[in-house]
């Protein structure tokens, strides 16, 4: 049962093998992943159009991180295929990874480097020359309000600063597709607004595509133009934000799709007096 695409008129099921005029920035077909006896992702299809700001929402354990890891070459799928701008990721990972900027969740950074060194490292690994890397590192540190901590070790950063420097690493080579797993977690509101501006400009004026996963429905509704709701390793709904949420808010639609709301009267003993 490949769900979801029914309510996604604008995203449309583009067969990635067919020579479409513009292949989607990310196309995923029949993705499966199993950890032990737990199926994390089951037969997942997803299309992320070029130039979209795509939100990926779902409850805890829905398979968001697993899906994004498999879409960026960090985790090999058991079955299924991933195309980035029409190129098969798992057929030629080295080539395709050049197009990607990745901010994974739940992994550490080379935190014995300073912030500036870490961003430089990320840029040099992608073949940028020294001057470009230096200029972009300075810009990114400034934009993310990290200039004062540029020469401190990342291990001494706070959680939010670590997220920001990881984001800078993902941005430094100006990738065509940005895949960000929980980029706003632990980030303060001012920095989050700055990051939203950077990403928004990148999509509107830079011609890039952004995928973010988040728990915060409100944020996704305001920031993204497309959204996919994932639960139990499947896409429950996908398409433009307006198409998915219909008349209500995205949060209401999310709860309606995912279910699991309990009434607030369950914990009668939970009172301090």
């Amino acid at each position: 049962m490949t769900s979801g695409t029914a309510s996604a008129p604008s995203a449309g099921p583009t067969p990635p093998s067919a020579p479409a005029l513009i292949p989607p920035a990310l196309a995923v077909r029949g993705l499966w992943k199993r950890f032990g006896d737990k199926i994390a992702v089951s037969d997942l299809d997803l299309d992320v159009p070029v130039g979209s700001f795509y939100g990926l929402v779902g409850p805890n354990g829905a398979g968001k991180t697993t899906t994004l890891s498999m879409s960026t070459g960090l985790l090999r799928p058991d079955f299924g295929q991933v195309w980035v701008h029409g190129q098969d990721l798992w057929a030629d990972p080295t080539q395709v990874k050049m197009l990607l900027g990745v901010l994974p969740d739940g992994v550490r950074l080379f935190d014995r480097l300073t912030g500036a060194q870490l961003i430089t490292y990320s840029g040099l690994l992608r073949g940028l020359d020294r001057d470009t890397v230096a200029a972009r590192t300075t810009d990114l540190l400034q934009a993310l309000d990290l200039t004062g901590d540029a020469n401190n070790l990342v291990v001494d950063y706070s959680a939010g600063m670590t997220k920001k420097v990881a984001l800078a690493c993902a941005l430094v080579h100006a990738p065509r597709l940005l895949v960000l797993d929980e980029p706003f977690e632990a980030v303060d509101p001012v920095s989050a607004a700055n990051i939203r501006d950077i990403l928004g400009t990148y999509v509107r004026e830079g011609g890039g595509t952004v995928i973010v996963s988040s728990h915060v429905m409100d944020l996704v509704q305001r920031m993204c133009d497309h959204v996919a709701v994932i639960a139990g390793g499947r896409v429950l709904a996908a398409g433009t934000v307006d198409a998915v949420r219909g008349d209500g808010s995205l949060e209401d639609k999310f709860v309606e799709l995912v279910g699991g709301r309990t009434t607030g009267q369950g914990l009668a003993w939970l009172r301090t007096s």
Partner: protein
Amino acid sequence: MVAHLLRLKLTLLRNGLRRSVWQTIGLGFAALYAFGAIGVAIPGLLLLGRSDAELIETVLVLMGSVLVLAWWIVPLVAFGVDATLDPARFVTFAIPRRDLLTGLALSGVLGIPGVTTAVVVLATVLAWWRQPGVALVALPCAVLSLATAIVGSRATTTALARVVGRRRYREFLTIVLIVPLFLLGPLMRGLATGVEQGLASMPAAARVVGWTPWGAAWAIPADVAAGAWGAAGLKLLIAVATLAGLVVVWDRALGRALVQPASSGSARRPVRGRGLGAFGRLPATPTGAVVARCLTYWVRDPRYAAGIVVVPLLPVLLYFSTGGGISDAMLLTGPIAAFLLGWTISADVAYDGTPFWTHVAAPISGRVDRTGRVLATGLIAVPVTLLLVVASVLVTGRVDALPAVLGASGGLLLTALGCSSVVSARVVYQVPLAGQNPFASQQGASMAAAASQLLGWSAILGLCLPALVLAGFSVGTGSVVLGVLALVVGIALGGVVLAVGIRSGGRTLDRSAPELLARMVSYT
């Protein structure tokens, strides 16, 4: 509450086994080893019971003291204390301190080393089977010794964990505590010569050790057997005071640890780097970047330094190992150092841990990763090895041996680097994270480590054999021609191994880097 903690420990152990096959295999081997130890100990103790009281006293006091001291010290240097029940996790629960202490102490016995120690310690009572009266005294004394060992291990690690909780101290201590381990060799030699000089001195040693905090409880039954009630009473006092002291130390340390966890960031003083460091000086290519990153880690990550801390000590070790004096054995300094330096990157990906994703996500081939790591190590290892080789040749006055020693060292370095490149692309296992409590260990993780080490070492020695044999003959006969031959063969063969190693390791990474990453993510 105590029962709760014990059940928790067992549950954690069982769940750990369900999660990892390696842990199960590791536990299996450990259990086999433990059964072996018990199987040797019990007949040995029964046999010991047939000899006279003095021999029983000597053996029990000396062996027992070593056992207790091992429990106190070994977790600090080698395997770490089993951190399954980390006191820091109980911070938020209102558990009475006494229950927590008792529970943690008893849970320390649950586990292969604990159970084995308990069985062997209690079995020492069997040594007194010919004097049932003494055996009755020996039983509580054995329990006392067991408690001293277990509580002592908790006390030392908890007390020191506070100090090492701060990164600077932790990095320093990791290194300081590892050095004595390498001095064990010469120490054992000294002990062996002591044995050769005659067992006559052992009973005297045992009598002295019997008055120490770790030997007192062991010496009580012998005093009782000899009717020396005064000595027995005093020793009982020492033993009980020791245990009480350890409990107090542990209690205090735990109290502080619970209020102010060692991992709290506030105690750390941030380190500032200057500019881009190595990144600014090395070529601005992906390979150059990997080299710069590795070099930075060599400086900032104590785990690397700990791996080669033995190198400056090699001349000292070799000096003492030949009974003190400059001999041709000193010529081994260069080759051994080369071997160790080359092998340091055999667990490089495991040392990276999850940050390795940076390489997986980057559009670089495995060859770039391998080459970068090898070059970084080479930048450190080549000058150090050259220096040691030249110095050793000059000190021993064997300038004629220079080509041979150079050949052996160069061959070993290149081969070790090549083999490391293959091994670290295939095997990852759980290592302490950069800056994590170095005393924490995961049960069973060391099996994969030991296996890959053993295989790797054999492969290096095997591949280097031609150069080593030539060099050996050259040094033995003083033939410079053979030495030059060793140099040519060593460098050529080593170069081939390194090239093949980088290629093969790189291809392995291209094929299975995501799988390596997934394994390391599963460890977190």
